[in-house]
C-alpha cells in the first residue's frame, strides 16, 4: 500500500466517520436506523450545487447555506415523520424511514434543476491544487478532508461532554424514560441530535463532492450503507466507535481494492457480509457496551 492509497484511505475513512456519527447518534437515542440519513448527505451536495450554479452565490456561502439547510432538513424529517411515531411499534418507524429515504432520492430526480442525470459538483480551486507528498501527487482535498473532519469531530466531542445539551443526549441514549422524568425536554434534545447529525453529514457531503465530484440522486446510498456498517463495527450508539469504525472501513475498502482489483465489483457484497457478521456475532461492535434491552 503506497502513500497515495494510504491517504485515500484516510480521506475515505474521515468521510465515512462524518456520516456514521449521524447514524449512531440517532440509533443511540431512538433505537432507529435512520435510512434517510445517507440521502440527507446526498442532498447537501445538491444544496451547494443549487447555490453555486442556480443562485450564483460564492462557493463558501453555498457551502455554509448547505450545512444550514441540510441540518434544517434533518430537523424537519424528525419533526414530521419520526416524532409522531415515537411510541409506535419499531417496525412502523423503520418503514417510515425507508419511505423517507426513497422520497428524498426521488425529489431530486423530479426537480428540474437536478434530475436523474449526473451533475458536476462545483469543486473550489483551493481543493483542487496538487501537492507532492512523499512520492505521490495528491489533491489538496485529500489533506483537507481529514483535517476538517477532525475539527468537526473534536467539536462534537466538546458538545457531547462539555455542554448541557450534550449531556442530555448522552442521558437519553442511556435511559430515555428516566431522563424525561427528571424534567429534561426530550423533544428538544432529540431535535438537536438530528440537527447535529445532519450538519455533520452535510459537511461530509460537501467534502465528498470536493473529492468525488459526481453528483447523482443515488450517491448517498452506498456511502450511507458503508457508514452504517462503520457505525455497527465501531459499536452502534457510540460516537467514538463511529469515528473508529469509519476509519477502519475506509482503510479496509481501499485495501481491498488494492489487493484484489479483480474482485472490486464484489466490494458491496463484502461490506454487507462484514455488516451481517458483526450483527450476528459482535452486535456491540468494537467499542460498544450492550444497549439495554429489557427481558
Amino acid at each position, binding site marked *: 500500500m503506497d502513500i497515495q492509497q494510504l491517504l485515500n484511505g484516510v480521506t475515505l475513512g474521515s468521510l465515512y466517520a462524518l456520516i456514521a456519527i449521524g447514524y449512531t447518534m440517532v440509533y443511540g437515542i431512538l433505537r432507529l436506523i435512520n435510512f434517510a440519513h445517507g440521502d440527507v448527505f446526498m442532498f447537501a451536495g445538491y444544496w451547494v450545487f443549487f447555490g453555486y450554479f442556480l443562485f450564483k452565490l460564492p462557493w463558501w456561502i453555498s457551502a455554509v447555506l448547505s450545512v444550514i439547510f441540510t441540518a434544517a432538513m434533518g430537523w424537519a424529517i424528525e419533526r414530521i415523520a419520526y416524532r*409522531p411515531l415515537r411510541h409506535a411499534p419499531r417496525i412502523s418507524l423503520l418503514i417510515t424511514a*425507508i419511505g423517507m429515504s426513497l422520497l428524498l432520492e426521488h425529489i431530486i430526480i*423530479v426537480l428540474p434543476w437536478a434530475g436523474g442525470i449526473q451533475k458536476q459538483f462545483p469543486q473550489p480551486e483551493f481543493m483542487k491544487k496538487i501537492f507532492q507528498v512523499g512520492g505521490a501527487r495528491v489533491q489538496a482535498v485529500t489533506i483537507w478532508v481529514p483535517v476538517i473532519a477532525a475539527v468537526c469531530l473534536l467539536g462534537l466531542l466538546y458538545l457531547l461532554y462539555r455542554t448541557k445539551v450534550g449531556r442530555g443526549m448522552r442521558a437519553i441514549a442511556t435511559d430515555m424514560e428516566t431522563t424525561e422524568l427528571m424534567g429534561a425536554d426530550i423533544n428538544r434534545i432529540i431535535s438537536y441530535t438530528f440537527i447535529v447529525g445532519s450538519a455533520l453529514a452535510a459537511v461530509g457531503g460537501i467534502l465528498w463532492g470536493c473529492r468525488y465530484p459526481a453528483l447523482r440522486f443515488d450517491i448517498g446510498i452506498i456511502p450511507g450503507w458503508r457508514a452504517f456498517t462503520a457505525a455497527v463495527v465501531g459499536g452502534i450508539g457510540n460516537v467514538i466507535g463511529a469515528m473508529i469504525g469509519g476509519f477502519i472501513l475506509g482503510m479496509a475498502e481501499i485495501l481491498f481494492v488494492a489487493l484484489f482489483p479483480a474482485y472490486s465489483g464484489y466490494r458491496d457484497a463484502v461490506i454487507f457480509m462484514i455488516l451481517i457478521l458483526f450483527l450476528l456475532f459482535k452486535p456491540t461492535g468494537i467499542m460498544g457496551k450492550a444497549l439495554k434491552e429489557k427481558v
Partner: protein
Amino acid sequence: MKLNRILTLFALAALFGFIAWGDKNLDRFLWQVLNFGAIYAIAAVGYTVINGITGQFSLGPHGFMLLGAYLVTLLILPLEQKKIVWLFQPLAWPFSEFSLPYSGFILALIAGGVLAAIAAVIVGIPALRALRGDYLAIATFGFGEILFVLVVNLMSLTNGPMGITKIPRYTNLWWSIGALVVITYAAVRIKYSSFGRALRAIKEDELAAQSMGINVFLMKLVAFVFSAFCAGVAGGLYPTLVGTVSPDPFRFFMTFYLLIIIVLGGLGSITGAVVMGFVFAGIFEGLRILDTAIVPGMRMVFFSVLLILVMLFFRRGLFGESEFTWDWILGLFRRRRT
C-alpha cells in the same frame, strides 16, 4: 359453513370463466396489468406471512425473486438463444446442455421457488436465531444486496447487467392467477391453523410463546422459507411475462413495492396483500404515463409520500389484520335490509 364452501366454489368458477375469456380477449394493457398484479400479489402474500403475521421484518424478498427469475430463465430459455446470449462467456453446465419445454414450465416455477426457499434456509438459520427487529431487517436487506451483487457478477450464469433477452413468454393469466390462487389458499390455511396461531403468538410475545412449548426459531424459519418460496415463484413468472430478465427490476425497489402493498393492504391481511397487489400494479403501470409525459420519478414520489402518510395516519391499512369473508359481505346485505 356449507354456505361458505358453496360461495367459494361459485367465486372460483366465476374466476375460471373470467380467465378463460380474459386471457384471449382483454385489452393487452389490462392483460399485462393483471399479470403484473398477480405476480406482485403472490410475492406480497408470502411477504404478509413473514412480516405481517409472524412480525419478523424481512427486507430481502427482492433477492429471492431475483433467484426465482434467473433460475426459471436458465431452465426454459431455448438452447439456440442460450448460445447467442452467452457468446463471450459460455454458459455454465448443466444449463448449457438442456432446456425445458413449455410442459416443464411448472417444474421450472417450482424449482425457482425451491431455490429461493433453500436460500432462505441459509439466510434464516443465522439471522432468525440471533436477530430481531431492526437488525433482522438490516441483515435480510444485506443478504438481498449480496445476492444482487453475485448475480450481476456471475456472468457465466446470468450474463450480468446486460441481462437475457428473447425469453419465451409463457406467462398468461392462467399461470399467474392460477399460482396466486394456490398460494393464497395455502396462506389462508396456514393463517387459520394452529400453525398460524403460533405465528401470531410469536408476533405478539415471543417470550410467552416459548413458555408455551413453541419452538419459536423453527416456526420463524418455516414462515420465512414459505415467504421466500412465494417470492421465488413470483420472480419466476416475471421474465416469462416481459420476455427479458436483468438484475435491474429486482433492486431494493421491488422490496419497497411489496412493502407498500402489504402496508396499504393491512399488515396481517392476506386479502389486503392480494387486493393491493393488483391495485398497485394498476396504479404503477397507469402512472407510467405520468412518468414519461410529465416527469420521471414522480411515481416514486407519489408512493413514498403515500407510504409515509399511511404510516402516520392509517397504520392499519385497508384491511388491518382481517380477511375478506363471505359472512362480511352477507352482513353488508343484512344490514341494509334492517
